[in-house]
């Protein structure tokens, strides 16, 4: 009995640790869960990239399911996800608003001209304050916002086709029914 315990206890501790470490292997420490999920999207009003005289606010999208995609011309990973966004826009799945984060408007426009513009419109967050309100800590980041203006999902990093098919698109379909 005692001998069994001598083996069983360290083995149990080892297995417990192994489970934790194994789980840790699959986690990305760079993906910090956002406290904004399930909360109303932060209010903002910013000039659009195309026409600085025009303002856009998150309220303008009330009643629609939409994506807020944080991008910048200096962001390399944005190029990776961009074809996917262009494709989503081409298929008219849902409107995508670009939050052009800490960018030079001229560079941003040139970037859109070169890679295609999937956005309903982009707004210029030149000093990154709206980004801070959204808890942005890297580019790209993408927020899925429902008809009531509530953030329902946040994707950190470039959207992979897999993340789009398995996570974002099903959620979009579900939210659109609501």
């Amino acid at each position, binding site marked *: 009995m005692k001998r069994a315990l001598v083996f069983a206890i360290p083995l149990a501790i080892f297995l417990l640790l192994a489970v934790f470490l194994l789980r840790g292997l699959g986690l990305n420490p760079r993906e910090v869960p956002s406290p904004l999920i399930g909360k109303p999207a932060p209010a903002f009003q910013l000039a659009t990239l195309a026409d600085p005289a025009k303002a856009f606010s998150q309220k303008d999208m009330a009643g629609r399911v939409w994506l807020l995609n944080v991008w910048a011309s200096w962001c390399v990973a944005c190029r990776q996800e961009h074809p996917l966004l262009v494709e989503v826009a081409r298929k008219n799945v849902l409107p995508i608003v670009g939050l052009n984060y800490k960018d030079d408007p001229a560079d941003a426009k040139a970037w859109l001209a070169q890679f295609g513009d999937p956005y309903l419109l982009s707004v210029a967050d030149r*000093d990154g304050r709206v980004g801070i309100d959204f808890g942005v800590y*890297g580019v790209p980041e993408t927020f899925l916002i429902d008809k009531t203006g509530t953030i329902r999902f946040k994707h950190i990093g470039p959207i992979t086709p897999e993340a789009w098919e398995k996570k974002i698109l099903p959620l979009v379909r579900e939210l659109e029914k609501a």
Partner: protein
Amino acid sequence: MRRFVAALLLAAGAAAAQPPADPRAPAETAKAALPTPNDPVAAKRAVALGNELRCLVCQNQSIEESNAELAVDLRRQIREQIAQGKSDREIIDYMVARYGDFVLYRPPFKATTALLWIGPFLLLAVGLAAARRVIAARRARADERPLTEAERREAERLLAGARESE
């Protein structure tokens, strides 16, 4: 054994007794007059707050230490909010509302962080229990009865024989 436990507890107590000043106990000395950024009290508060907050870009540095652009922006936020007369608590809440508990180097105690806080003490308890068992077992072996006169003579004979045969 008991002395060993006492020493451990003392060490743990000493470690717990002197944490750095908690910024959440607000030192709101400068609330009446709005502090300017070059006000030394405000500057000190800004640095203390920046040291309490994790930079999300380079996660092992604080907002105060990091040179990531986001950290620069957040340092600016802290200084602006201090200038607006916000308390330390309000500024911390502002950061947590946007980036979650992850920005805090000292996360609050709740269900999701319970293991983080209690874990080391659990491990210490397990270790102490194990040490106690081992020491008790060793002591039980040492407490065996002394040799009888016959056994002692037998042992001496064996030892002497061993010496002769060398």
